[in-house]
């Protein structure tokens, strides 16, 4: 192969690489936003908080059957945590679920808040933070979007 041909081949290779990169960027961003709009909407998620009367523990339960109408597979990650006022963990749990393109998959996440972490046994009187992390990743988990909600809880007056 002549020098001229090598330069042309390199030029074509660069153009191909650029086109591929742009296509992957558009496809993955489309998949992320699609997963955000469809996976967590339309009643696919169920959130429950219940108290075990015998032990006094609170149990937070998040489950769902998210759909993926995008063109690439996605991995959804859920994490729930209860933190004290200093930011130390009282309870933390996480789960992840792989949802293929055009498919759906079930997941369940439970978080148990021990009774000794709740003053007076009433969650409304407890002070601390509740943290919920939701992440969606695609393209072999190389591209992603994460949403972290940190809700501050104060004792009821």
């Amino acid at each position, binding site marked *: 192969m002549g020098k001229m041909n090598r*330069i042309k081949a390199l030029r074509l290779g660069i153009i191909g690489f650029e086109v591929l990169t742009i296509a992957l960027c558009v496809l993955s*961003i489309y998949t992320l936003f699609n997963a955000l709009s469809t996976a967590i909407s339309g009643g696919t998620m169920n959130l429950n908080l219940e108290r075990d009367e015998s032990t006094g523990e609170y149990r937070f339960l998040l489950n769902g059957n998210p759909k993926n109408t995008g063109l690439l597979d996605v991995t959804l990650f859920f994490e729930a945590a209860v933190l004290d006022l200093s930011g130390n963990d009282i309870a933390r749990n996480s789960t992840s679920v792989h949802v293929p393109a055009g498919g759906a998959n079930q997941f369940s996440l439970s978080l148990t808040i021990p009774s000794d972490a709740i003053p007076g046994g009433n969650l409304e009187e407890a002070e601390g933070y509740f943290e919920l992390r939701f992440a969606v*990743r695609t393209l072999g988990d190389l591209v992603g*979007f*994460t949403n*972290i*909600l940190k809700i501050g809880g104060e004792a009821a007056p």
Partner: protein
Amino acid sequence: MKIRKRSVVFAVLILVIFTILPLYAPSMMPQEYLRAFSSQGFDLVGLLSKVAFIGLVMSILVLLKGFFEKTSAIYLALSIVSTVFWLLIVFFALGVGKMENLGLTVISSEAGGVLNTLIFDIRLFAYLAIVITGLKIVHSVLKFKEAKSKIAQVQPSQPFNIPTQDKPT
């Protein structure tokens, strides 16, 4: 001094699209949109001003390239500078106005005791852009060498192209 028409056309196009339009865009947008963006901590006017500046620099680079021959070392230097500048534009776009983020954008807002943090991780494309920029620089250097060698083949030894006369026999 000659300038390639193609460079002038490209420079004007870049100036119109990336400098003039972003500078006029805020005056054409409804004020409530601008207020909504600023209330979310997103400085749209500042972002558009940065885009306008990038457009201005880019059009100057394209125009400058038009003045030099492809065999000139200055042309090669300008090619490399404009390629690196394109990489910065990619970083700027991927980082939603913040080049230093390299595609990892973190937006936080707090309201009513709720802290909401959004993280966009598209660093993969920033890394791919770095690889593409490297390849483009290699290509520019090879093209420059190729153009130089072509010139050398056309004019092998004579510094000036003086026509020679045959001696009368």
